[in-house]
């Protein structure tokens, strides 16, 4: 298994790991998306709008 290497060249910085060759920029973008997705799931939402007594419903 080839070791992970970061290739710096005038053509841009790339990460090379086995069959995977990905630009550092693209890797950061994908990592950021995963982080944002996880944060969206776990960070609490709402600032008190939610009221257990707010029972108004649309009449059918």
């Amino acid at each position, binding site marked *: 298994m080839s070791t992970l290497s970061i290739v710096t060249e005038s053509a841009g910085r790339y990460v090379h790991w086995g069959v995977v060759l990905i630009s550092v920029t693209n890797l950061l973008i994908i990592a*950021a*998306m995963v982080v944002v*997705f996880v*944060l*969206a*799931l776990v*960070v609490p*939402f709402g600032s008190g709008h*939610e009221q257990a007594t707010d029972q108004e419903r649309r009449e059918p």
Partner: protein
Amino acid sequence: MTTRTDSPAPGNTNDAGSWTLRLRSRIVGLVPAGQALPDRQPIYVASWIYVFGVLTLAALAVVIISGGLLAIGGVAWWHVSSLGLFVNSLHLWSVELFFGFMVIHLWGKFWMASWRGGRAMTWITGMVLFLTSIGAAFTGYLSQANFASQWISAEAKDGLNSIGVGAFFNVLNPGQMLLWHVVLLPLGVGALTVIHVVLVRRHGVAPPIDAADPSMEKEA
């Protein structure tokens, strides 16, 4: 036919054959009353994952506006003007944000199985939107009139020719590609977006998986 001075009641059966009436009924019936732009949402709509649809929509707006600004200057403008280059950068980065938000939105909708409850078409139109957006981005890359356009077209022609599509959709022809990019594909993305959002308003936001039916509980 005599003219009437009083206002005609909607659904007047005398005009049952009226195309206008039928079209209006269709339009009005697309979405339940008050749900086209509702000011209330079900209480389970309480997670940050829900904002990625509207973020995608907002990013699309910026993509279109920045693209329109580029169009004012024309194809060669951004190569010779620093303001043009900045506008081009706005267009590139809004596209990156557009795809980033859209994919996170897709991840969220998948793990929430948001196709439930008759929402299959919402899911499908979303998928078609994703693919159409890729096509729009692709024709954009072809329209840059620089090295990237040369290489992308040289490579892409092989993919498209291999399935016979290249005979009709010539990526080596910037005149054709530019018009697909600024006319046909934006119209497609726009129309699909409208359909997708109307479907969301029509069906409402999908309830939690295994949620108890409130209409049953009411009777309990």
